[in-house]
């Protein structure tokens, strides 16, 4: 049993602006718990990217910079290169990280930038009203695939973790979810590991979370949360790479 019922120190008391049942804020809480436990709040810079989570700074009590849409990994690169002593994480949506930002994200990963990138994969562009994203499931209806995602037209779901796992610069690569209590506990461990990897200077740590977007999936919160299991069929929940557990200890 983890320590529960405690409001993390790094989490501000502000009410979340997210829709009822949105998983973003569960992940915020976990992130804050990990920041607290690792004692890095005072030397961490968070990157709020453009998406439903762009108000990250209303909630997480660390220094936060707003990055242009898709550019968090490049902005993070600039920060970390200038100040290697700081801890840097990005918090991005699937549209942000893997659509407009794919180039920035993959290059930062390939260079092995010593930052932690968190991608919240809800298979749609939440903030702009539920358009298709590279991670939209096949045949899923969105506002810009009104007839369902057709592999002949929009291609296939992009499997970011699977790509990154093959990069030499990537030290940690995993996919989690927060749609069951067990997975929430597991998710926190993954987060912790991602930061530990960064603290040891091992390279790029990537963490993807499957996440419910009830509003754009047009589901009630409970069904949406259950539906994350369906996402996991296309996007398996798994640790793809963990150089720390593979014995690499210091950069």
């Amino acid at each position, binding site marked *: 049993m*983890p320590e*529960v*019922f405690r409001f993390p120190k790094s989490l501000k008391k502000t009410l979340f602006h997210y829709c009822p049942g949105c998983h973003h804020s*569960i992940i915020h809480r976990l992130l804050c718990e990990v920041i607290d436990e690792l004692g890095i709040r005072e030397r961490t810079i968070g990157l709020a990217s453009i998406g439903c989570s762009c108000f990250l700074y209303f909630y997480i009590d660390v220094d936060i910079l707003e990055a242009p849409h898709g550019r968090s990994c490049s902005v993070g690169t600039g920060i970390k290169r200038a100040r290697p002593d700081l801890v840097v994480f990005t918090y991005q949506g699937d549209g942000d990280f893997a659509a407009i930002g794919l180039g920035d994200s993959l290059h930062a990963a390939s260079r092995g930038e010593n930052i932690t990138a968190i991608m919240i994969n809800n298979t749609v562009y939440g903030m702009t009203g539920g358009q298709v994203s590279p991670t939209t499931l096949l045949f899923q209806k969105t506002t810009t695939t009104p007839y369902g995602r057709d592999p002949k037209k929009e291609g296939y779901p992009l499997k970011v973790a699977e790509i990154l796992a093959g990069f030499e610069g990537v030290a940690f690569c995993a996919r989690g979810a927060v749609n069951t209590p067990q997975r929430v506990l597991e998710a926190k461990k993954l987060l912790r590991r991602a930061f530990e990897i960064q603290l040891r200077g091992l390279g790029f740590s990537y963490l993807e979370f499957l996440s419910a977007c*009830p509003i754009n999936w047009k589901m009630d919160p409970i069904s949406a949360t259950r539906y994350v299991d369906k996402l996991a069929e296309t996007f398996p929940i798994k640790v793809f790479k963990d150089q720390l557990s593979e014995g690499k200890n210091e950069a």
Partner: protein
Amino acid sequence: MKKIKILEERCKGCGLCIEFCPKKVLGFSEKRNLQGYRVVGFYAKEKCNACGICFLMCPELVFVSEE
């Protein structure tokens, strides 16, 4: 055993806590908060085993320990 406090003003009525509570001790009350949502309350607080699942699943950090 922990005493659990429900921060009603944070609740958005998503129902995840109710769904996942293994003891089925949670439910919507009649009360509406300032955000306009029906808020969660204990049906049978005594049966709660403080397992923490509601805390884990609640997106709004509604459940906090009383101390």
